[in-house]
Structures are given as structure tokens and as C-alpha cells.
């Protein structure tokens, strides 16, 4: 280890980044529980394994070459590459990341958790009928050909959207727009669940809402690492004031989102539902992700509340259009991510002023460019990967397997046995 660089390490930032990386990893089991509670008993294992599968597979992909593609030296702003980063073999433990006062390995791990959760989010759209083997292959291809380039465009010095000044604090475009819009494409390719009947609202009821609420709670908790941890990427050399700001805006938007969704549903159907509140919390968190370190807590309040309304409306549209985004990955992450990315251009005050806080419309235009590029790239890429997998491996389980349940037919396990023994 090089003692001079080790001395430049900021212990506070490093400690917080280590903790944040662990927080973000905890979001993946949180997401697995969030999704698992919404499916039927016969599919709980399969639904959770989509997320855990991403944890294992992308955990390997990221250290072998994913990090090199996303954060290696920029090749014309479109992709990263650096042979020394393959397998992380060229990163000395004492090597700092860029102009930040944290070890690069800590940054690698922190970013790796984002690469894991993003494809896991997509699984919500195809739950209860997509083949596990195909989903794993999809995850691998999607992380390599969609996520890594997109992360490079937006976050890596030299990335073409980064250089144009697009703001995406913790991944409104890289994580939520990309996964949400990809989820829509994949849900259309995979088709509806046999038991889902649009119009009548479908006939699929969640089997364990307390599990979903626990998952939402873990997501909320982990999101503090997701957003406040991302401060180190924009604040050099240490993560301090911006981390505090991102923490405050994250909390505010989550609470506002949960409150607004609950009130809308209360007004619309006469009863406040737990799933509604949990969905609103996640919608608020999604929306504040690109904005977290760029807006005031009051702006975050507005962003969280408005996004909950937008996502509620988007979810209602699902029944009208008839596609089966089973657990609303598009309705919450796609729509919430888009609203958040655009709202960042309206409300940001640092490092530039947005349209509604005395600045011009320039930043809003950049945000629209970033979101538009993310949507176009993610949807096109997912369509190509999805069509290729459909033609080779097949996307869906057989109708018989779907009726029996994916747990037993694909994994040889049941989530629940007798209640007595």
C-alpha cells in the first residue's frame, strides 16, 4: 500500500461510503420482499430469486468487467475501458478514486450495488411468468450493454451526458428511468399472466402485504445510503454538506409521497391502503433520487408529493392499456424517475439554478436530453435483447408451469408448507 495516498484518505467520507454501500445492498432483499408480498404464494421464491439472482450474478459481472465498462477511461464519451480494472486487479487498496478522498475499491463496491438493484427492479414487471434462466441471461446482457454504458454517459468524467452537465444525483436516469422503461418493454414482450384480466382490474391479489410493507421500510432505510452516499460522487474531495442535504431531501420526499398517495386513494376509494402508502413512499424516493443533493428539502416535499400523484395516475392507466406490468415497475420507477429527472431541472439550486429558482430553462433542457437519451437507449436495447432471448431461450414458462407456480416448477421448492409442522 502506498502510504502517501493512504494519508489522503478522509476517514469520515470513507466510513460513510462503506456504510452506504452496505445500505444499498440491503435494498435488494428489501426489494425482493416488497415484490414477493405482492405475488401469489406459489411464486414467492421465484419472485425473490429474481432479485437475489441479480445480487449474485451482477456482483460477479461488476468486479470482472462491469466497473471497467462504466468507470474506465472514457472512449469517446460512450463507454469506459481500462484493462487494469478487469477483475479489479490493478486497484491497489490505497489508491484513491479520482479527486475524491476515498479508496477506489470503496467506490467500486458502492457503484456495484447500483448495478445490482437496477436490473432487479425490472423483475417486478415480469414476475410470475418469466423463466428464471432467461431472466438471468437478460440481467447479464442488460447490465453489460445498457446499464454500464448509461452509467458511463451520466456519471463518469468524459461521459457525453456528464460533460453536457446533465444532473443525475443518484440515478434517476441511470437506475429508475432505465429500469422502468425497460420493464415496460419486457412486460410487453413477455405478455400477460394467464390470470391477469385487464379491465376487471385483474384477478391477482397480493398474498402477504406485511411482507411488502417490511420491504418498503428496508428500501426507505437503504435509500439513505443510495442518495446520501452519492454525495461523494459530486462533492470533492469529501462527502459532507451535500450528503446531509441529500439525506434531508430523501426523507422529505419519501414521507410526502407516502402521505399524498394515501390521501388520493382515501379520497378516490374511501379507504387508505397500506400498499398505497408503501407505493407512495417508493414513488417519492424514486423521484428525489436525481434531485437529492441539488434541491432544497422544501422542493423535495413538492417533488415527492407530485410524483406520488403522477405514479398513481400511471398505475390506473395500466388497466386501460391492458399490458401486465405485474408489480408496477414502469408505473412507479419509469414514471417517477422521469418526473424526478425533469423536476431536477426546475428546482435545482446547486451547482446551477433551475427554471423555478431564478435560473433559466437551460438546465431543464439538459435534464430532458438526459431523460430522453436514457429512455430511447433503454427501450431500444431492451427490445433487441428481449427479442433475441425470445427467439433463443424463450421468455415465458409453459402455461402448465405458470399454473402450478414457478416455485415448484422452476426451483423445486415451496415458500410455504403446512402451517402446523
Amino acid at each position, binding site marked *: 500500500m502506498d502510504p502517501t495516498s493512504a494519508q489522503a484518505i478522509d476517514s469520515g467520507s470513507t466510513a460513510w461510503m462503506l456504510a452506504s454501500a452496505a445500505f444499498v445492498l440491503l435494498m435488494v432483499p428489501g426489494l425482493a420482499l416488497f415484490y414477493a408480498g405482492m405475488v401469489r404464494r406459489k411464486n414467492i421464491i421465484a419472485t425473490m430469486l429474481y432479485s437475489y439472482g441479480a445480487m449474485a450474478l451482477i456482483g460477479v459481472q461488476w468486479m470482472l468487467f462491469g466497473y471497467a465498462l462504466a468507470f474506465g477511461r472514457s472512449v469517446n464519451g460512450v463507454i469506459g475501458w481500462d484493462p487494469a480494472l478487469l477483475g479489479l486487479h490493478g486497484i491497489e487498496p490505497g489508491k484513491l478514486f479520482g479527486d475524491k478522498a476515498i479508496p477506489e475499491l470503496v467506490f467500486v463496491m458502492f457503484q456495484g450495488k447500483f448495478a445490482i438493484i437496477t436490473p432487479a427492479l425490472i423483475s417486478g414487471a415480469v414476475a410470475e411468468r418469466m423463466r428464471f434462466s432467461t431472466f438471468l441471461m437478460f440481467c447479464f446482457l442488460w447490465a453489460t450493454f445498457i446499464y454500464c454504458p448509461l452509467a458511463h454517459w451520466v456519471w463518469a468524467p468524459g461521459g457525453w451526458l456528464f460533460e453536457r452537465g446533465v444532473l443525475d444525483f443518484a440515478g434517476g436516469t441511470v437506475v429508475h428511468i432505465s429500469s422502468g422503461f425497460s420493464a415496460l418493454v419486457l412486460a410487453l414482450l413477455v405478455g400477460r399472466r394467464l390470470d391477469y384480466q385487464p379491465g376487471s382490474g*385483474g384477478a391477482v391479489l397480493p398474498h402477504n402485504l406485511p411482507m411488502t410493507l417490511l420491504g418498503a421500510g428496508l428500501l426507505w432505510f437503504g435509500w439513505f445510503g443510495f442518495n446520501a452516499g452519492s454525495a461523494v460522487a459530486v462533492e470533492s474531495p469529501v462527502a459532507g454538506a451535500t450528503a446531509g442535504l441529500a439525506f434531508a431531501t430523501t426523507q422529505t420526499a419519501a414521507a410526502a409521497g407516502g402521505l399524498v398517495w394515501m390521501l388520493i386513494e382515501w379520497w378516490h376509494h374511501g379507504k387508505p391502503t397500506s400498499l398505497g402508502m408503501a407505493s407512495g413512499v417508493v414513488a417519492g424516493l424514486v423521484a428525489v433520487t436525481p434531485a437529492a443533493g441539488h434541491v432544497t428539502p422544501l422542493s423535495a416535499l413538492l417533488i415527492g408529493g407530485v410524483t406520488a400523484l403522477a405514479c398513481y395516475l400511471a398505475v390506473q392507466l395500466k388497466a386501460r392499456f391492458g399490458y401486465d406490468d405485474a408489480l408496477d415497475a414502469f408505473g412507479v420507477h419509469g414514471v417517477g424517475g422521469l418526473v424526478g429527472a425533469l423536476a431536477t431541472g426546475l428546482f435545482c439550486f446547486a451547482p446551477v439554478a433551475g427554471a423555478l429558482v431564478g435560473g433559466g430553462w437551460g438546465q431543464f433542457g439538459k435534464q430532458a436530453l438526459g431523460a430522453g437519451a436514457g429512455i430511447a437507449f433503454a427501450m431500444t436495447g431492451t427490445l433487441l435483447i428481449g427479442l433475441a432471448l425470445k427467439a433463443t431461450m424463450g421468455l415465458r414458462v409453459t402455461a402448465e408451469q405458470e399454473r402450478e407456480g414457478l416455485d415448484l416448477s422452476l426451483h423445486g421448492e415451496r415458500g410455504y408448507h403446512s402451517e402446523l409442522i
Partner: protein
Amino acid sequence: MKLIIAIIRLERLDPVQHELQSILNEGDNYRLTIRPVEGHGRQHGEVEYVRGQPVRARMVQRVEITVGLNDRYVEPAIEAIVRGARSGTAGEVGDGKIFVVPLEQCVRIRTGERGEAAI
């Protein structure tokens, strides 16, 4: 001997137990087995909301009571269950059903007693 199988609303279990106890408990305890069941008669499941979309459950949830009885207790037990399980004075659709079937044999495992003494 008869076996009474009654399907009742969950919230009527306490009143039904109370009524049965008043006619069947003769110093020692009376015997009862319950289990949760799902199904439907004229009624279907309740409407639930999933992210703002109404979904009607296919099945309603009820509780099933099983009691083995000597013949002279059958009529009083039926009346007791009806008293306890009926909603209001007139009753409502969904209050449930009582089935009475002949009981071939009854064995108390501990003693090996059979028939009416074992009930």
C-alpha cells in the same frame, strides 16, 4: 350419532361457541374442532383495492366447525348454531350452512372407548 359440519362467518365464531357451550357443556368441557375454509355460495369475495384498482377475491373466508354429537343433542345444537351465527334477527346472505351427517363410529384414543361413550 351425528357429525355436524357448520360453515359460519369468522366474526360469529364467538357467539356460536357461547351458544354451543350453554347446551353442550355438562360439567366437563364440550368438544369442538374449527378450521379456516374458503369457498363461495351465492356470495363471492369482498372487493379489495390493489394500487387503486378494485379486485374481487374469488373466494370468501369462513370458519368451519365440526362437532360429533349423540342423537339427542343434535336438534339443540343446530338451534344453538343458528342462534349464534345468524346476522341480526332476519339473517343475511352469507351467514353460512349447517350439514348433518350420520356418524359411523367414534373412538377415544386414550381409553379405546367406542360409540356414544366416546363422543
